[in-house]
């Protein structure tokens, strides 16, 4: 057992880190001040995303047949960790989770259109799962797709469709069996071009970033945009959710906040003399953060390593999700406490500490414990799959 990065893995980490700094141009940082462009979508974002494609950085995990490099899960994690750390709004769900599913299950035409576009950094896909009355109980969703000749007619509404305001497609889960009691057995996946008539978006402004409500009004969608079997969508959704978690909770993004506060507290004067970091209570908070962060790093590494050995154990995947989401929230608090009231000063206001990054991260972080599968569901899975306890009711 040697739980450290090998020299080759370290070199990859450094290479990605160096590359990503060249992407975060002053123009992009300026563009991201706009709330609507914080998660990408502006012209400068499009330019840098296409540059990643041209430089061969997109789809490294894909098969060689798709033009990828078949990177191991460990290498893929190292890449993801560094990209998230950089702050670039890289569309992971598009590149790492939806595109491989499309490549495996979509029709020839659509595969070329979408996979090729993603590879070049020209295509972004939004996820259309949740609905106003279907969240954690996703299988109760109501958006309908009805067969009409060679097409499907789609009607319904999706909620929390992040990136849909600029995405090229929505990866849509819709009910194709009219019998609602069939729940997850009546769902089919579609790829809906956002240019189609009948598609519309309204913004939803959250505590953190902008997201969207999306509307599907008598959309006529050719059958070639169906992905996978009719009524066979559930398997594609659950497989994708597991991959999603690997990019949600990465170590670098929070480690850099810890380092930022450590550096700030070492140059900031304490009221009674000395530096802030010399105060025992500050040291206590930083030590709490450091001991928790070490586990975030090891959990991420172990999950990636385990996925290279075989399928990821369900209880293990849930353990990582619950621990990381709850620790992220705790970390934001412990670091904000060190800053005190100055921790509430938002980005671009005078006196903002670390450019208001932690103030913003806390607001975005409020979704972590329920997003990507509510923690209660994860604990149910742990009790059943990890401890062989009976199903709760």
């Amino acid at each position: 057992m040697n739980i450290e990065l090998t020299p080759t893995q370290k070199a990859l980490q450094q290479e990605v880190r160096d590359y990503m700094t060249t992407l975060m141009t002053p123009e992009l940082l300026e563009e991201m001040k706009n709330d609507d462009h914080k998660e990408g979508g502006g012209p400068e974002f499009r330019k840098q995303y296409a540059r990643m494609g041209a430089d061969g950085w997109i789809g490294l995990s894909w098969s060689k047949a798709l033009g990828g490099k078949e990177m191991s899960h460990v290498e893929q994690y190292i890449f993801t960790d560094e990209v998230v750390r950089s702050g670039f709004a890289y569309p992971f769900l598009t590149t790492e989770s939806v595109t491989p599913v499309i490549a495996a299950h979509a029709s020839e035409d659509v595969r070329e259109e979408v996979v090729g576009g993603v590879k070049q950094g020209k295509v972004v896909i939004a996820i259309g799962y949740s609905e106003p009355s279907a969240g954690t109980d996703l299988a109760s969703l109501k958006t309908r797709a009805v067969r009409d000749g060679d097409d499907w007619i789609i009607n319904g509404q999706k909620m929390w469709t992040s990136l849909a305001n600029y995405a090229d497609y929505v990866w849509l889960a819709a009910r194709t069996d009219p019998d609602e009691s069939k729940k997850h057995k009546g769902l089919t996946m579609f790829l809906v071009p956002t240019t189609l008539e009948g598609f519309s978006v309204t913004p939803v402004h959250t505590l953190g970033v902008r997201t969207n409500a999306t509307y599907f009004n008598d959309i006529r969608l050719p059958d070639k945009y169906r992905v996978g079997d009719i009524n066979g969508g559930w398997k594609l959704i659950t497989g994708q959710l597991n991959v999603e978690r690997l990019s949600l909770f990465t170590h670098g993004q929070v480690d850099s906040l810890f380092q930022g506060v450590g550096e700030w507290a070492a140059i900031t004067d304490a009221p009674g003399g000395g530096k802030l970091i010399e105060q025992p209570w500050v040291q206590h908070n930083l030590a709490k953060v450091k001991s928790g962060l070490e586990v975030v790093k090891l959990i991420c590494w172990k999950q990636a390593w385990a996925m290279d050995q075989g399928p990821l154990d369900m209880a293990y995947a849930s353990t990582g999700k619950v621990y990381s989401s709850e620790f992220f929230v705790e970390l934001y608090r412990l670091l904000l406490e060190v800053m005190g009231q100055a921790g509430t000063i938002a980005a671009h206001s005078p006196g903002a500490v670390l450019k208001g990054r932690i103030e913003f991260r806390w607001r975005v972080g409020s979704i972590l414990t329920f997003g990507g599968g509510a923690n209660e569901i994860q604990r149910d899975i742990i009790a059943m799959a990890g401890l062989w306890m009976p199903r709760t009711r």
Partner: protein
Amino acid sequence: MDFNVSEEITSVQQLAAQILGDFAAVDKLKAIEQQDEVFDGALWQALAEAGLLGLDIPDTQGGMDLGFFSLTTLCEEVGRSVAPIPVIPVLVAAASTLRRFASDSQKDQWLPGIADGSRIVTAALEEYNNDDPTLPGCIAEPVAGGYAISGRKICVNLATRAARILVSAMNGDELVVALIDPESAGVTVNRQEVTAGDTRYELVMDKVQVPDADIAANGQWAVTAMRWAQQANRVALAAMALGVCDKMMRITGQYTSEREQFDRAIATFQAVSHRVADCYIDIECLRLVTQQAASLIDQDRPAEDASLIAKIWCGDVTHRVSQASQHCHGGTGVDRDYPLFRYCQWARQIELSAGSSARLTGELGESICKEYLASAVG
């Protein structure tokens, strides 16, 4: 990056589990607890015969030489079985330290006997309000041909059975690591009843004469030795806690799946199952930081922060898992005819040994402070 445990170490761990399972059945534990000294000598011999006392002892001195990591897997299994044998003071704090820092003749003198179970060398690293063996309150006064050592050590295992007890003491500014013969003039041992239920001793030394042949290390070398011993001791405790907590959680998962109230198994209440799921998460966290620190020590790489972090998690997780297990059992958990109470007692003992979470969090904070102040100036 490799989380794989080698086949060799896995089979060692399985062998340990099998022997411990045979010896540490509840009725046998009860019988040992009635003895004057709570120590299972027969089990100790069985482990010696299987080679398991020599996991981190060189083969030239009768050991298997599988390294420090393998020794932590034995500690984990001892925790899982709550068998009354002091593997950490004897095999980690004494033997593993001696193999790395003592002279060749001392290693030849003591390690073969430890490996074959014929002799016990224990260690006494803690004093009252002081768990740091690099800064002991005990005094080592230079005398002709050796040192005269005075002071107190606490909660020492097997102080009356051991051939030697490893202690540290200060000669002015210089640290000395000595092997005390408990038969020497000036040694008094007083029994101490402790939470874990095993027999411990206060070791009182009054100008105990220690010949040069029994001085294991001096000066900076002694500081390095005691720093190593402290880190290894903490990581071994974390590994033992892993076994203790994992077993408590499994007992609790099973009990709540069988215990019925309101005509259903109480595990079907989310409020109950989620507490056990939280134990599962805590234990996985403890496993990761423990394996990280153990593998660093195993490879002779710096493990100062990693061992602190492992022991901080160890202190927090033992407390939380122990209390959750008790709570989910209701009255059954506190009944001494039910096995859970031993695990809870061990959990508290381990939590408070070699530095509590509060103290070590303070220490880690100071180390973070130094690091950032240094880079702020530079």
